[in-house]
């Protein structure tokens, strides 16, 4: 009774018949409105703007932590390898001390090696500093008097607060912490008290050892404070007192001898390894050459693990924020159920429904990531000012609580002795990019699940309920 049905394709019912570019444009337009608009059939405020904010808010601390952790660790590592371990170090063997080999002469040969920029002869050892009634354990570092001139890396990391870095004559340059503990200032005199190194435990805090315990009269060397310095990282420099090699020859009979080596780029492992090998060939039995990564392995490991822990904690925040996207997309697909049904009744393919809702999630993720990273970077750039401001605020509140009468101690949110006094800004571009990409991916995934359900929705189920 009816003519045989022609093929689907002949009637233009073939799937995929709509022009893809036009459909893609429509999908984008739908995603955009799902993201931004909030007039819905039920009148419920919808849209993914809340999700965008949630993502952005969680990315702000993540970005700050990333940038600050990066800056802190880079800054600390730089100080270790410019001031402490040097890029590489020749540790002169103990037996050589007695043989009379001069560390300065050997340093001259090391300095001539290819790839070596500076070679610094140094003698290190523990000593007591005595001023007035106070005695403090210090790590005496005897270096060439022209070190700040020859080693630019060293000079860059040392900030002289008072006087100058002048080791000539009987000059001593103290860390700010030592100067504080001894209550001395530039121009004051103090004494180096030679101590056999085995008597002083390296962990001894501010132990004041009486002369009586040393057995026999201690050898005293009078020195004058010529400068007070800080590296910005107290944990590293709090016990350092710099003197000239000549002063140490009198005051530090039992020091370790070493040669610090500076190269062009300490972060170029191949070049560094080549220099280490060359130097080892040169010094032979005289000493052992190691680079900063080996020398500071334990500290580096602990930095990296604390950075990893910090990032992990903050990454969890981001995951939670993207769950926001999931729930926001669920609510969008729920509140848009009828609209999705109308669109499907008009012939919008399920794939296009899925794509538009998922894309809305992607857009939410991208917008949140851009916003969060931007604000986070802005906060990180001004982290020192921001911290100071917060601390001033907290101190002010503390003052209020303490009452007008007494003066409350200014409050430091982070203990400056464990962190750099001023946090340098280094942009971990790669990490930031990875986090932003992961956020977008997570947001997309979070949106895809409810979007799939919406795509499968049978239009009749939603059409039956009317506005």
């Amino acid at each position: 009774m009816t003519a045989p049905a022609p093929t689907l394709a002949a009637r233009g019912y073939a799937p995929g018949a709509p022009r893809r570019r036009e459909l893609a444009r429509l999908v984008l337009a739908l995603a955009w409105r799902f993201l931004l608009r909030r007039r819905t059939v039920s009148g419920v405020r919808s849209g993914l703007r809340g999700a965008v904010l949630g993502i952005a808010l969680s990315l702000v601390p993540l970005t700050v932590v990333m940038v600050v952790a990066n800056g802190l660790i880079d800054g600390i590592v730089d100080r270790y390898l410019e001031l402490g371990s040097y890029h590489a170090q020749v540790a002169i063997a103990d037996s050589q001390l007695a043989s009379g080999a001069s560390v300065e002469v050997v340093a001259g040969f090391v300095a001539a090696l290819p790839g070596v920029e500076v070679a610094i002869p140094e003698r290190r050892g523990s000593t007591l500093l005595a001023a007035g009634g106070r005695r403090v354990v210090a790590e005496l570092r005897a270096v060439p008097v022209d070190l700040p001139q020859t080693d630019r890396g060293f000079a860059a990391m040392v900030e002289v607060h008072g006087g100058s870095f002048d080791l000539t004559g009987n000059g001593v340059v103290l860390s700010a912490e030592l100067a504080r503990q001894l209550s001395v200032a530039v121009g004051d005199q103090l004494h180096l008290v030679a101590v056999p190194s085995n008597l002083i435990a390296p962990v001894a805090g501010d132990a004041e050892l009486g002369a009586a315990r040393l057995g026999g009269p201690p050898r005293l060397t009078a020195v004058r404070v010529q400068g007070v310095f800080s590296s910005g990282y107290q944990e590293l420099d709090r016990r350092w007192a710099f003197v000239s090699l000549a002063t140490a020859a009198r005051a530090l009979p039992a020091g370790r001898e070493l040669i610090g080596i500076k190269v062009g780029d300490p972060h170029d492992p191949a070049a560094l390894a080549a220099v280490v090998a060359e130097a080892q060939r040169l010094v032979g039995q005289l000493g052992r050459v190691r680079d900063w990564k080996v020398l500071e392995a334990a500290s580096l490991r602990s930095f990296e693990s604390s950075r990893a822990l910090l990032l992990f904690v903050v990454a969890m925040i981001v995951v939670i924020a993207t769950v926001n996207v999931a729930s926001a997309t669920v609510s969008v697909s729920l509140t848009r159920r009828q609209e999705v049904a109308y669109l499907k009744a008009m012939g919008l393919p399920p794939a296009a429904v899925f794509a538009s809702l998922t894309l809305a999630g992607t857009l939410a993720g991208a917008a949140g990531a851009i916003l969060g990273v931007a604000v986070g970077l802005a906060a990180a750039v001004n982290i020192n000012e921001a911290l100071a401001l917060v601390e001033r605020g907290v101190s002010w509140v503390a003052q209020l609580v303490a009452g007008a009468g007494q003066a409350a101690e200014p409050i430091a949110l982070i203990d400056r002795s464990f962190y750099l006094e001023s946090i340098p800004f280094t942009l971990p571009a790669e990490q930031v990019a990875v986090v932003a990409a992961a956020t977008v991916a997570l947001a997309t995934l979070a949106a895809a699940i409810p979007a799939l359900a919406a795509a499968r929705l049978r239009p009749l189920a939603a059409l039956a309920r009317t506005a």
Partner: protein
Amino acid sequence: MSSPPPLVVDQVWKTYRSEAEELAVLRGTSLRLGAGESAAVTGASGSGKSTLLNLIGGLDQVDSGSILVGGVDVATLPERALAAFRRRLGLVFQFHHLLRDFTASENVQLPLLIGGAHRHAAGTRAAELIAAVGLTPHASRYPHQLSGGERQRVAIARALAAHPEVVLADEPTGNLDERNAGEVGDMLFGLAEQRGVTLLVVTHDRSLAARAQLHLHLEHGQLHVAGERSPP
């Protein structure tokens, strides 16, 4: 070679099943409409009028029988082809079913864009249809800024936008006052006639039903001819 009739409903059965009961709503319903013909279906509430339209619109599936739109059997279409099939129909519901976040003009463009039309072509076509329903001054208003009758006129423009072979309307005036119902009814039948579109309207409104060439009554799951008038 003559093209197949736009709409053939042949011996369609549809039963709703729930745990408690079985409700045979359509029991061998048949219907045949030629190109440009119009029909109105009346019937008691719950007689199955909306069910019939939903089946024709590819929104629900028959138990048995066949529905051919332009010669294509809806029942045999897989899900993806169904979306393409729906684009060959225009739907008007009692409630306008416009998208809230799209202007009147954009709502009319939607079926065209879904069909892959270029946006300039869609814009031109929408403007023409908006003019045909007399809403040119309101083209860029959102649905909530329009009256009920105006929304329904937008819905009619939208149903006609993508050059459908068949327009299905379920109580298009059911939510309007008498004056608006008359205007919207005039517009629906007038435009369908003018454009040679086959029109099937479900309605309780006797005066609306009277405008159709064929007046059918749905009772006991079957369609009976209640009135006929020769085409003008």
